[in-house]
């Protein structure tokens, strides 16, 4: 038996935007009381797209140097890690971020490419041939 991962597409209902905003409002408000997790592991925005040949991930990571970005693909899960070093009076502080997301389809792991421009990291993940959508014509007898 195979376990299939569903990713529900972003719904276009009139409430989805508002619900999302309110969820985010609550999570950020409570995070200040709870303290730890939010401050230690801040989140960055991530987009996921696909077309017939590739899957694409865009992550907003301003102010990070290329050497401080780590991208890993393990079993269909892409993990992006980055650490931002901020020089300050007491010797500099560094914050690290990490985010994982599951990527649809079978990916050719050795052909994954990433580019970092204007603070946005774009990861291109080519799909395996058998994973690409193909038209199959069936003749009905």
């Amino acid at each position, binding site marked *: 038996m195979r376990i299939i991962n569903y990713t529900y597409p972003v719904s276009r209902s009139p409430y989805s935007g508002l619900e999302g905003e309110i969820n985010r409002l609550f999570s950020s408000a409570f995070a200040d009381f709870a303290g730890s997790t939010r401050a230690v592991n801040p989140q960055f925005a991530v*987009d996921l*797209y696909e077309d017939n040949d590739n899957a694409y991930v865009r992550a907003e*990571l*301003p*102010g990070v140097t290329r050497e401080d970005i780590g991208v890993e693909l393990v079993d269909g899960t892409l993990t992006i890690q980055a650490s931002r070093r901020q020089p300050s009076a007491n010797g500099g502080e560094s914050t690290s971020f990490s985010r994982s997301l599951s990527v649809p389809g079978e990916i050719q792991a050795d052909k994954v490419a990433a580019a970092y421009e204007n*603070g*946005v990291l774009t990861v291109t993940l080519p799909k395996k041939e058998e994973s690409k959508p193909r038209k199959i014509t069936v003749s009905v007898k």
Partner: protein
Amino acid sequence: MSLFTTTAPSPSCQPAPTGSDSSPAVRPAYDVKETADAYALTVRLPGVAKDGLEITAEGGELRIAGRRNWKQPEGWTTLHRETSDVSFKLVLEHDARIDVEKIHADLKEGILSVSLPKAETLKPRKIAVN
């Protein structure tokens, strides 16, 4: 919004009052640090390149406008979207406490660092007494 109010730096963007122009905009996350001679302003503008950035200083206000120039290519299906294409807009009042002529700005990898030297009149000065 004053340059000098020490509010906690907001980690995320907030919708900005649009003011005179009607295009939607968000206020970017920013941070101001003070040193003896200048204020250092750091603004997070992911996805903004130098040609999409405009900084103007007029009438005691510093305005920073950034346009994101990324367009989603045809044929890409969106599966999950958290970023947005909305432009950034930040307006800070400085009340003539900075020397507008000597402002220096640098945009690197989506982070804008602006150095705002303090106006001469405000630097501490010793006054001799006869």
